[in-house]
């Protein structure tokens, strides 16, 4: 027999239940609602004894919380910046580079958890069910514990970033601009930063040009045109992933009244937009390779990318409903195209290292 408790947001105990601090032996699991207005008024919790919850290992819960599968969004630019500067022998401060890399990873992990906590407390995660395990909704941990972990990770990130800023003064400007963008993205928007026009642009800047130039500044090489162009290419690719997610949640987000690029375009136009965006990315990719890569990678890499993108375009075109299983297939196809692009890039970078060591063939 389940036990339920419904609390208004104005109730004295509301936050205790929301943060999971109301009991040491029980968890309050918010019930999903199909009525978008509900989360603004009250939340119904299912009260479960801790013994009833099948809790996986702490490591698994932690990996779910930090969303380790998205870490490649940092690893690829990190690898790129490292290789680029290794090839040109411009790694002047490897220690700062290492510290900046570690700081960004800790910060990314901390912010991912924070994002989940905010979604949980606002009730957003009861309306929009995204893919992947949600430790807070499943009761594996409390919002309070997750929040603590998030702060610890963010503090470690700051502690690691301070020596970088001391050693490389230019890094202060990059961190300052990034922080400003992040705060603007958070505070100028009603919803989560993932779901708004301005926030999409902020996400493009932070995970694209700002991240790439930040790594390069940290190693003492300053900012150059190549890194900014690569950052822009990467940012556009990251937004493609975001748009794929927005597409797969189009119906739910539209119902909840959330405004983002795809909900404003609607189902039919979103399909065209997704294909146009990825085509735009391929154009940028080609321009970047035309300017900074060898003829081989320009033609070979681009040809493979175009060829591999065709199934993605076909999948998007053949999607008939904003609610069926086609959406999962679109998401998979989009992720596959993105993964292949990463594969080509990594292979190209490894090839660059090899030719640097061996000398040109």
């Amino acid at each position, binding site marked *: 027999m389940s036990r*339920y408790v419904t609390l208004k947001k104005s109730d004295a105990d509301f936050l205790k239940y929301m943060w999971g601090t109301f009991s040491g032996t029980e968890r309050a699991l918010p019930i999903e*609602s199909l*009525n978008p207005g*509900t989360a603004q008024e*009250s939340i*119904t919790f299912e009260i479960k004894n801790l013994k009833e919850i099948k809790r996986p290992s702490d490591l698994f819960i932690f990996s779910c919380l930090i969303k380790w599968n998205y870490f490649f969004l940092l690893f690829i630019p990190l690898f790129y910046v490292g290789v680029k500067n290794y090839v040109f022998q411009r790694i002047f401060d490897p220690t700062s580079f290492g510290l900046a890399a570690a700081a960004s990873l800790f910060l990314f992990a901390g912010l991912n958890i924070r994002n989940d906590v905010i979604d949980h407390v606002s009730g957003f995660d009861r309306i929009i069910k995204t893919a992947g395990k949600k430790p807070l909704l499943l009761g594996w941990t409390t919002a309070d514990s997750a929040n603590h972990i998030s702060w610890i990770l963010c503090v470690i990130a700051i502690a690691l970033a301070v020596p970088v800023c001391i050693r490389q003064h230019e890094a202060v400007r990059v961190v300052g601009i990034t922080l400003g963008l992040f705060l603007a993205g958070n505070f100028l928007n009603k919803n989560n930063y993932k779901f708004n026009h301005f926030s999409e642009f902020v996400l493009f800047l932070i995970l694209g040009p700002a991240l790439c130039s930040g790594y390069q500044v940290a190693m003492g090489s300053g900012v150059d045109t190549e890194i900014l162009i690569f950052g822009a290419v990467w940012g556009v690719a990251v937004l493609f992933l975001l748009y794929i997610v927005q597409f797969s949640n189009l119906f739910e987000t539209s119902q909840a009244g959330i405004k983002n690029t795809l909900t404003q375009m609607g189902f039919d136009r979103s399909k065209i937009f997704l294909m146009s965006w990825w085509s735009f990315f391929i154009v940028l990719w080609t321009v970047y390779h035309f300017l900074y890569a060898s003829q081989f990678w320009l033609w070979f890499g681009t040809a493979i990318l175009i060829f591999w993108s065709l199934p993605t375009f076909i999948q998007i075109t053949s999607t008939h*409903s904003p*609610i069926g*299983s086609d959406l999962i297939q679109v998401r998979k196809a989009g992720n596959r195209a993105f993964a292949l692009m990463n594969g080509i890039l990594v292979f190209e970078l490894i090839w660059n290292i090899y030719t640097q060591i061996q000398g040109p063939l």
Partner: protein
Amino acid sequence: MSVKIFSPQDFPAYLPKLNSLYDDLFAGGKGFRSKLVQIVSKPLKLSTETETLLCQTIEFIHNASLLHDDLIDRSQLRRGKPAAWTKYTPEYAVLAGDYLLARVMVNLSGHGNIKLVQYTSGIISDLLEGEWLQDSVVGDFFITVAQLDRIHNLKTASLFKWCLKAPFIALENYDKELHVILDEMGTLLGQLFQRSDDLLDYDIRNDEGKVILGDLKSGYLNSFGAFVSAKMSRSEIDQMVKSKDLSDFYFIFDPDQAAGKEKFLSKVNQFDAVNLQKIELYHHYVQQLSGKLMLMKLDKTSTEQLVQILNSLTDLLYFRKKSV
């Protein structure tokens, strides 16, 4: 009280076949939704005129949706008789449905409560969105129960929500908290009713004699089908889609007919267990509603009766117990 309220104003006699079409349509219905409106209206002491209007409204909307639904699904039968689009013409079926919805707006706007008109229009939009979405997933045999829930929330639950909320709106009670509770109750009732209806397709508690595997054969994987197929391999799903009767369906679980049926029934039990949790949640909301009604200082006896009836609805809608 009869809910079949025809008036020359509603249905002009000079339109050929319209009244005979409605006669056929309204004759076989149980009028469950209008009964629910009456049950909720009783402790609120709505005027007979308002109560009649609400009952008429919900029956008109429901029957309009049936006229359109049968045509979309190409269903030959409705309540054991030829569907309107087959007996008359598809054009007349569409127009008759449209006409019912138009009359709803004419009648409601005459009542003068703009919030009620607005809410009812929203529900009709939801209903149509649900139909549209359902049509868009025909042939999708990998759809999940959660995705179908969203469609059913629009298509089926919207009318249950209306039945619960409209009497309060007619009374100009717009208490947000109360309406959130009623929304959640309506959603759960709609889901339970739809899931039970989907089980009929697999001949579970099928006292109505609904056609077996009708949904599946018309390319629509219903909630029970989605529940059963969630852990199936692609080849098993292919086999399921090709099932001509329940024997074929049991074969997916086990080549031995008896063992296959046993495994199938164990799936039904699992499905029931999932829905029992929804029933428990529904009862929690009824309890919440009871608290709200007490604060409204309504007649205690009729409020208690209402709570009792609302609590028993799950037996009627999900378990199809006739004695409730």
